């Protein structure tokens, strides 16, 4: 729950409700991007974001996303669990 996991926004699914599809280590799930909808923080397709419990919380660059993912992979179990939980998610 506390891990921020990096994902790339691949498409907007439901713009009215700020729902976009993100790719996290190959897992594609819907997330809410409503917190990143203003000014320079507004996300677009192709952008990288840090996701907490199904919500994109901050925009990051690709290098940062890669580094964060590498770090999370070194954590082992906590990241695997987070990914498994994300897999079970069906946000609409």
């Amino acid at each position, binding site marked *: 729950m506390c891990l921020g996991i990096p994902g790339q926004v691949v498409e907007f699914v439901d713009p009215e409700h700020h729902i976009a599809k993100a790719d996290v280590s190959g897992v594609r799930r819907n997330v809410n991007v409503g*917190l990143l909808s203003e000014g320079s923080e507004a996300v677009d397709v192709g952008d990288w974001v840090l996701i907490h*419990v*199904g919500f994109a*919380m*901050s925009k990051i660059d690709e290098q940062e996303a890669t*580094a964060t993912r590498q*770090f999370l992979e070194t954590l082992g179990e906590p990241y695997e669990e987070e990914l498994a939980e*994300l897999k079970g998610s069906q946000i609409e």
Partner: protein
Amino acid sequence: MRFVDEFRSGDVARQIAERIAGLVEPGRHYKVMEVCGGHTHAIYKHGVEDLLPPEIELVHGPGCPVCVIPMGRQDDAIAIAERPEVIFTTFGDMVRVPASHGSLLDAKARGADVRMVYSPLDALKIARENPDRQVVFFAIGFETTTPSTALTLLRARAEGIRNFSLFANHVTIIPAIRAILDSPDLRLDGFIGPGHVSTVIGLRPYRFIARDYDKPVAVSGFEPLDVLQGVYMVMRQLASGRNEVENQYTRVVREEGNPRALRAIAETMELRTSFEWRGLGFISQSALKLRDEFADWDAEVRYELPGVRVADPKACQCGEVLKGVIKPWECKVFGTACTPDRPIGTCMVSSEGACAAYYNYGRFARRRGREAEIAGLEPVVREPASA
């Protein structure tokens, strides 16, 4: 500073460690608190302490949301979950937390409909699909998860989903830091501030630590090099007599935080007069509840709750651990009666809890050593002195 290329390089870590060592005043003992459980986890996992000079002690703080929920609230959660009409949804971290009569998992085994979800929006979906049931979401966490709960609530209202409610237990980090600063048990020299919480609240809320308590703060990321650099920033301030709030994690944390997230919280929630934290006792204005206009979605309004204050298990010293007064292994039942498989206290439940982190990466470092390997950063191999 970027660690992308240097990330796997132990040389960089050692260089920072050397610079830190160069800032130590002979004969002085430094206590630096890392507030966030994510930092605690990274520190144990990667043996960050082993790179520090012996004069610097990292003290683990209260920033693990699973750890700080008091027993009485967990009992309340189970009381809600056991109502026949309720589908009780929760993050996976909470289901093993021991309450007065077992955990949520035990309640599930007795027949309660307890479901683990990844996101509060998953809980909302369950409510949509089960109009004849009441779906309650166990909302916990610091400012990292609070905005998600807020947005989920706004969506429930917008869609007119009435069979959905929140059992709100969101806590705020600043009053807990203040309580620790006011506690007579502990003398701290500086703080490693939480990274992800700060993406929401920004840097301003920490200023009182520098201004009123004359202590340096470095908001830091979660990689071992981030934590090391955070320690370096704190030590540099101490060496030059400065007390400021610095941002090590500029690649993610903005000075002003996330205004959209703060607005969503303010729109849906307000501060409670007081809230009990496990081990820390009641702290005024340290948690959030739903505003009156959202009473229809408030599980505390909807259901009669026991609301009884329950003392922590006698054997458990989570309180002292959360305040950084004792190290996990100084607890008498650490690793014997209390293990991650059979936790007595919350600090042993979450992988971010100091007891679990220490148990997983300290005591059994040799077994886990290989997984823990990060080139150049030796995995921690430290046996608890008392075991």
